[in-house]
């Protein structure tokens, strides 16, 4: 039995289901919790592809940080009150569009003759390798990231706080 494949589909299906629940959930807070499960499922998929560092990053950033941020935002908007509207007028259209996109992508996936992987076994990439590359070849984007983060921070503060006092 191909254990990794089974695990892949178990967790893959889990995160697909969770994802579907996110977009259909009536309760937005539930959606945020489902999102957590979807993201954790994706992290497990990363692990299955031997990208353990990335899986942990997924846990840290998505699981720990972004979901918490979303929850804070939800609490700021009093989501427990008022009617909950599941979809908008575009719902049928959205279903069509989603399905069409899915069909298109799947056809591409299964039609394209993908080259055979170089080795059978997936090798784990050591973190130092990533690190070295990051701080030499990808130095410029790396510094840009800090600028992007800075801009986001300042932007968020300005937007969220203006008119506050």
């Amino acid at each position: 039995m191909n254990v990794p494949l089974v695990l892949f589909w178990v967790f893959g299906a889990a995160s697909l289901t969770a994802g579907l629940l996110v977009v259909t959930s009536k309760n937005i807070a539930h959606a945020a919790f489902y999102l957590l499960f979807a993201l954790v499922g994706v992290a497990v998929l990363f692990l299955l592809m031997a990208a353990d560092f990335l899986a942990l990053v997924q846990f840290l950033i998505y699981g720990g940080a972004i979901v918490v941020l979303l929850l804070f935002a939800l609490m700021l908007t009093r989501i427990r009150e008022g009617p909950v509207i599941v979809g908008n007028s575009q719902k049928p259209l959205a279903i069509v569009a989603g399905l069409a996109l899915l069909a298109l992508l799947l056809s591409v996936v299964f039609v394209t003759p993908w080259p055979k992987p170089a080795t059978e076994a997936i090798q784990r990439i050591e973190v130092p390798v990533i690190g070295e590359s990051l701080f030499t070849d990808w130095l410029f984007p790396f510094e840009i990231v800090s600028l992007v983060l800075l801009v986001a921070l300042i932007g968020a503060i300005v937007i969220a706080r203006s008119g506050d006092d």
Partner: protein
Amino acid sequence: MPEWVESIIRVAIAIGFVLTTVLVLIWLERKVIGHIQQRLGPMRTGFHGFLQSPADAVKLLVKEDIIPAAADRWAFQLAPALVFVPIFLTVVSIPFTRTLVVRNLDLGLFYVFAISSISIVGIVMAGWASGNKYALLGSVRAGAQMVSYEIPLVFSILGVAMVAGSLNLETIVDAQRGLWYIVLQPVGMFIFLVASLAELNRTPFDIPVAESEVVGGPYVEYSGIRWGVFFLSEYANTFIISALAAVVFLAGWRGPLLPGWLWFLIKTYAIILIIFWFRATLPRLRIDQLMTFAWKLLLPLAFVNLLITGLYLVYDWPRWILFVASVAVLAVASRLVYVVGRA
């Protein structure tokens, strides 16, 4: 023996160990705090109250658990698991000795923080789902506090990673041959201890669960075993954080004469006792002071620590310079505690 069978055995041992440790810790805390307050603590259940925690556990198990009508049933029931499991997962990578470890992960240090950050969501979820104002207030406080202290916590431990050049906990312990990192990283150790107190929601940072304000915070509405699971996770987390501190700053199982696992336990329990000692002594901060403390003092301090550690490594300074510099930084910081708090 296939590896997964071995893993199962190791995990089973770890579960057993963690559960007993939690029971022992609860008993120990009551005894230690009792003696600090010149009383005895549990005495009448078993010898010197040793069976007190099991009795509490059994009682909680056979206690009715109520789901309030205003609660969000789904999230209310799930939240305890979401708090407990991440904390429980981190035990995988904690090395008791070189062999006494579930799995020595290559990214051990990173793993611990990444996984345990999920439990914040669990606490916020618990408070939100309870449909209770105190719970919500407590959970928002808990969320804000835990995210604020997560950052200094991570940064404080990075200094160690820099010195050791590895995130592997076993390697880190090996690198402390001869010199414990508490000497090289006193600032890191200080930040780690303070921030982990906050992560654990323990005095003086027990604002989210403050009895005198929000009557128990996110857990107000929880009863019976569901509440017990929160209690369990709290103490499991205490143990894990202390064990991590022992491994990272006090060289884990290293030590003369005694067997390694004993050294590890001695160091871990020493840190746990300090945490209990703090709890018995200090009053609680206010939420704004707490946040201010994290962002205005601990975080810059962590940066300074990273900077001097980096300089020491890059320019290959003698060790004493790092030690002296760290102590100086610590001294300045301790003066600033009061100033920043007032600001």
